[in-house]
């Protein structure tokens, strides 16, 4: 069976796992191509206008896959991936959004992934999903391999980070932490290539995925209340951790994203209090890249100037991040 996976939302987090799992079960996977203007337009047309950008992009990818002739689409109904946490209400309604916004969409493979009560719920839902394709002992084997692959990939990111922190790799340029949902950061088209632009400008880019879960949890303690969105928790923990280590923080948020409206504000308040320059880039259907480019360049210029004249930072006015 040909199973389609849209290259959007949690593809950017769980693809290693999904790929291994379905491959072990002998299913063929088809991933939609990287986001393009056509895909975005397609999604924007199908969705109500108040929907956030990533979900619109997701709908575009689903359309794209439907045209490719897949047998079914993997659109999981993800309630939670970590204990007592949520992703976002839109993930909880994702299969329903897809079904109701798009006509003629292929059948959906949408297991309920609910890890609110611990990882057992997640395992059960994968086993249930797998048992549609293969006998249970094979499914258990596939799940084990998939989970191991996911862990390996996550760990390799962390390893990379630790290697970079090593004193041998003396930093020459600026160190910038880029924070945001993984599906925004790593989608070249949607994020307008902010990460690559920063790298081209000889910056060392750090993201939240490079931190261990323990570090994130530890650095969430500065909050008044436990953050109950998984990605929000990561972003806030990373902001707190990196604020002592980087020259500046760039937050990518999508317009009309519910969780971002809160987390970005909390990050901003934290940066302001600890004196870290913070740039917020809010992304929407707008595809003109020059504005973003200019802002990133200006931000880097300010950081460089601040570094050169370290004694009297900031070199003008009151502060780099005043409103």
């Amino acid at each position, binding site marked *: 069976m040909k199973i389609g996976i849209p290259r959007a939302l949690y593809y950017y987090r769980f693809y290693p796992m999904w790929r291994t799992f379905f491959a072990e079960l002998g299913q063929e996977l088809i991933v939609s191509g990287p986001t393009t203007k056509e895909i975005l337009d397609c999604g924007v047309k199908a*969705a*109500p*206008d*108040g*929907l*956030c950008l990533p979900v619109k992009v997701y709908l575009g990818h689903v359309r794209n896959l439907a045209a490719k002739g897949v047998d079914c689409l993997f659109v999981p*109904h993800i*309630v939670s991936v970590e204990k*007592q*946490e*949520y*992703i*976002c*209400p*839109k993930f*909880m*309604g994702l*299969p*329903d*959004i897809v079904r*109701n*916004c798009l006509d003629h969409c292929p059948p959906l493979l949408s297991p*309920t992934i609910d890890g609110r009560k611990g990882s057992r719920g997640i395992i059960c839902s994968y086993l249930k999903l797998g048992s549609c394709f293969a006998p249970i002992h094979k499914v258990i084997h596939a799940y084990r391999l998939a989970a191991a692959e996911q862990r390996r990939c996550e760990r390799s990111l962390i390893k990379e980070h630790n290697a970079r922190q090593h004193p041998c790799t003396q930093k020459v340029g600026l160190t910038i932490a880029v924070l945001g949902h993984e599906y925004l950061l790593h989608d070249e088209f949607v994020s307008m290539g902010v990460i690559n632009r920063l790298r081209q400008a000889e910056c060392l880019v750090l993201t939240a995925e490079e931190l261990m879960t323990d570090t994130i949890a530890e650095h969430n303690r500065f*909050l*008044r*209340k*436990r*953050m*109950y*969105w998984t990605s929000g928790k990561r972003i806030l923990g990373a902001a707190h951790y990196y604020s002592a280590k980087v020259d500046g923080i760039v937050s990518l948020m999508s*317009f*009309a*994203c*519910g*969780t*971002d*409206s*809160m987390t*970005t*504000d*909390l990050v901003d*308040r934290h940066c*302001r209090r600890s004196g870290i320059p913070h740039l917020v880039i*809010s992304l929407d259907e707008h595809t003109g890249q020059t504005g973003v480019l200019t802002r990133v360049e200006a931000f880097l210029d300010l950081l460089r100037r601040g570094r050169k004249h370290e004694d009297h930072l900031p070199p003008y006015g009151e502060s780099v991040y005043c409103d």
Partner: protein
Amino acid sequence: MKITFPHMGNLYIAIEALLGELGHEFVVPPKSSKRTLTLGTKYSPETICLPLKLGVGNLLEGIELGADTALMVGGRGPCRLGYYAALQQEILYDLGKEINFIVLDHPKEDFTRLKSQVVPLVQKGGLRALAKGVALAWEKLKAVEKLERTAHFVRPREAKPRATTQALNRALQELRRLGSIRDIRRRCREECDNLLALASTNAQRPIKVGIVGEIYTILEPFANLDLEERLGYLGVEVFRTVSLARWLRNNVILSSLGLYRSWKLRINARGYLRAPVGGHGLDTVAQTAALACKGYDGAVHILPFTCMPEIVAQCVLPNVSSDCRIPVLSLVVDEHTGETGFQTRLEAFVDLLSRQRKGGAGYEPACLSWS
């Protein structure tokens, strides 16, 4: 300790009864106004939902009147409401107006903190006062909702224009000063009879419209630009599918005992939304389908801009509308306070409904929206 709290429609009547009975000083902030909104918008994050902005405005106005403690609710997701109190604390801290917060959070969230915040609230009056306060607040809440329901029924039928709203406001103010359950019940009955007396006897059967959507925007007349009143004056009998008393009974009392299940909603929403999506998303879809079965002429869906659960519902509603043959008007509210566009859309919707009732030829029920 002088307590203030954000507004949500006429909920303040119940809260002030509770706080009064517990023996605390309190400040009821002025009703939400343009000033509240301006204050709230100025200090809140840009794309956050309207209830937070108005809440911040209410708290700031309460502080201006001398409050030093705020009473808020908490939650544990996935809707943003659960984080409101924490964010409001941050906002007030950055403004240099840090006040104490009493956050009625989920007991499983942080029990020690909950205890440390709630104990001083109850200590002064003791448990007996708490019991009486809760009973009184509950009774007032029910009375308020009954009066409002009656007003919704009477408004399209009223003989003298605008008399219902005046009578309702008078009745609500009367209710505020009552101090015993028996008085409240008697008064509520009397006032309901008074309201019903305002209806003209030979009125036609008005169009019936259900209001679905996010609870705050349904209950707070400032946020929804007096939606219910406007519809009433257009000759529409409004039915509010959200009731705060019912919500508290189901989601606070029964669900903490493990007795409340959302199966009824799930059955109604089957085929459209399979599980709760936080907030009132599932309720919206289920209630819209239920309204169609009950023979309502239409539904008005109201939501704050960027509300996460209601956006999911909004994605689904066009299909509910066409399958169940019930016209739905989705209204998104934000800081925008221009009334004319709002009024025009409502008038157009009511026109559509009345034509549908007359059975105009070639009529196709449609989901109206911004787009």
